[in-house]
């Protein structure tokens, strides 16, 4: 286990930023830490990286307790804080060398790591430029290179793509994926597609508590509601409710049918099927046997956005009541 978090709680004054969360990160995994702003992601990361201690609870990194072995833990972690703070008056090489030296690297090892990280992160061409002159995308690369310079086992990245343009986001994600092959990575984000694009597993956190934990497929499965099928069909009748409605209502595994009105001869329906069943085939057969023409049929599965939305808003309402 690369990281083990047990009953972690952090209070700011009387406000609970993180409330007794427990989770594990397996070695080699890319874990997405997903939640709305202010959910407790950054606080959790600051605790894991030994920036500040928890109010209560325990964290182990590579089997070492962060309270007792803070020094060893910090050697094993590469950290990219929120907003990617950098010394804007230093140039890229100076800055990376500074970070490397503070991690105890020197001489030949230092030089080879510098070269390697600049190549991997694609910043070799700008190495003599002041960081203040670089674009956000390059700064982010410098931040990642800094986090990786001492070849840490664990990478903690706090919102690594925030503030970047779409092209830069794709580049940084690829870089994280590439770097993450040999590392354990925890990255936080409030953007769902980020998790879909980069992570093996996701933990959704809201108001300081974990509301979901699993792979994307699992989450989608677990939180998928019934499927909704919207239907448009052409039938020569003015009384859809008595003629068409019962035919569909009859179908096995159909929970409910809603009539959405008509435009000329085209009638609109919305059909809700039971969880895990596909009723589209039967709908088609019935329509054909009655001589109705299907103009449109589409199915809407619960998207991850909906899952996320449901978890981070419905939950809020429940806990607030």
């Amino acid at each position, binding site marked *: 286990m690369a990281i083990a978090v047990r009953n972690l709680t952090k209070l700011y004054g009387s406000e609970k930023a993180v409330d007794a969360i427990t989770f594990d990160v397996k070695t080699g995994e890319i874990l997405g830490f997903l939640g709305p702003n202010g959910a407790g992601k950054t606080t959790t990361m600051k605790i894991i990286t030994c*920036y*500040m201690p928890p109010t209560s609870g325990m964290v182990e990194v590579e089997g070492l307790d962060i309270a007792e072995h803070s020094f060893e833990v*910090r050697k094993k972690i590469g950290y990219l804080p929120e907003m990617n703070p950098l*010394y804007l*008056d*230093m140039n890229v090489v100076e800055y990376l060398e500074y970070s490397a*030296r503070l991690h*105890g690297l020197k001489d030949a090892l230092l030089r080879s790591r510098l070269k390697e990280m600049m190549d991997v992160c694609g910043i070799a061409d700008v190495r003599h430029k002041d960081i203040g002159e670089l674009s956000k995308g390059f700064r982010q690369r410098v931040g990642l290179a800094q986090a990786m310079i001492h070849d840490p086992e664990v990478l903690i990245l706090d919102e690594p793509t925030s503030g970047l343009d779409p092209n830069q986001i794709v580049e940084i994600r690829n870089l994280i994926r590439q770097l993450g092959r040999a590392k354990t990575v925890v990255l936080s984000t409030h953007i769902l597609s980020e998790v879909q694009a980069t992570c093996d597993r996701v933990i959704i956190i809201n108001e300081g508590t974990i509301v979901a934990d699993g792979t994307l497929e699992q989450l989608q499965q677990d939180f998928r509601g019934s499927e909704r099928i919207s239907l448009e069909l052409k039938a020569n009748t003015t009384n859809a409710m008595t003629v068409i409605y019962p035919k569909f209502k009859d179908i096995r595994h159909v929970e409910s049918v809603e009539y959405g009105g008509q435009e000329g001869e085209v009638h609109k329906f919305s059909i809700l099927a039971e969880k895990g069943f596909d009723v589209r085939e039967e709908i088609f057969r019935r329509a054909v046997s009655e001589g109705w023409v299907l103009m449109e049929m589409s199915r809407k599965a619960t998207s991850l956005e909906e899952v996320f939305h449901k978890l981070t808003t419905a939950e809020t309402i429940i806990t607030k009541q």
Partner: protein
Amino acid sequence: MKFSTKEIPKVLGTLSNVGTIFKKELRSYFNSAVAYVVIVVFLAIVGWMYTSSMFLINVASLRMMFELIPLVFLFVVPAITMRLLAEEKKAGTIELLTTKPLHDWEIVAGKFLAAWALIGIALIPTLIYYVTVVFLGDIDNGPVIGGYLGLLFMAGVYVAIGLLASSFTENQIVAFIVGLLLMFVFFMMDKVLIFVPDFMTSIVEYLGIDFHFSNIARGVIDSRDVVYFGSVLGFTLYLSVVSLEKRKW
């Protein structure tokens, strides 16, 4: 006495961490205009005020200069130290620094030494005035050596105070003003003795920085003065470390 060889890498590691931070801070003074401005300002103010009065008293001594520089320190030192920690806090880089395998006191020591060294460097050009005085007349070297030593001690204490002020806030202006005020308190202590109740005068006088500076600047290096500078310096740096650890409370 037994000495464990296991301690050697630890000590070397610490030295190299302090050295790395020291070099980075000193370089950033010279990369920005700060260092040059400080040196020029120092040389200009001291030179003008000093030479304009020297020919009036007609004595070959640097006493006037050594009386003047502590005043200049009051404004120059907080300007140098204000950014040391406040800037890191503002930019968020403090988070990077404190999550490296470093002790907080190594950060404080590295930054302190860099700012102190800059003052030392800025003092070097003032040797020009010494050279001119040597040409003009006979000079007693004792007070000159004592004076420079006193200035270095004083600068050390002021830099430590400025660093402490910088650790309180992420606003550099606030750090400057707080630093200046704290230094001013130490500077004024031995000058307000008439307002102090009798039984406290000796304590207040002992706390005043100028009192100890003028002792050393006379050319007499007394252990009491050295102890004073050492303990104020050490205590202030210790407070900076505590203040930096405040994030953990």
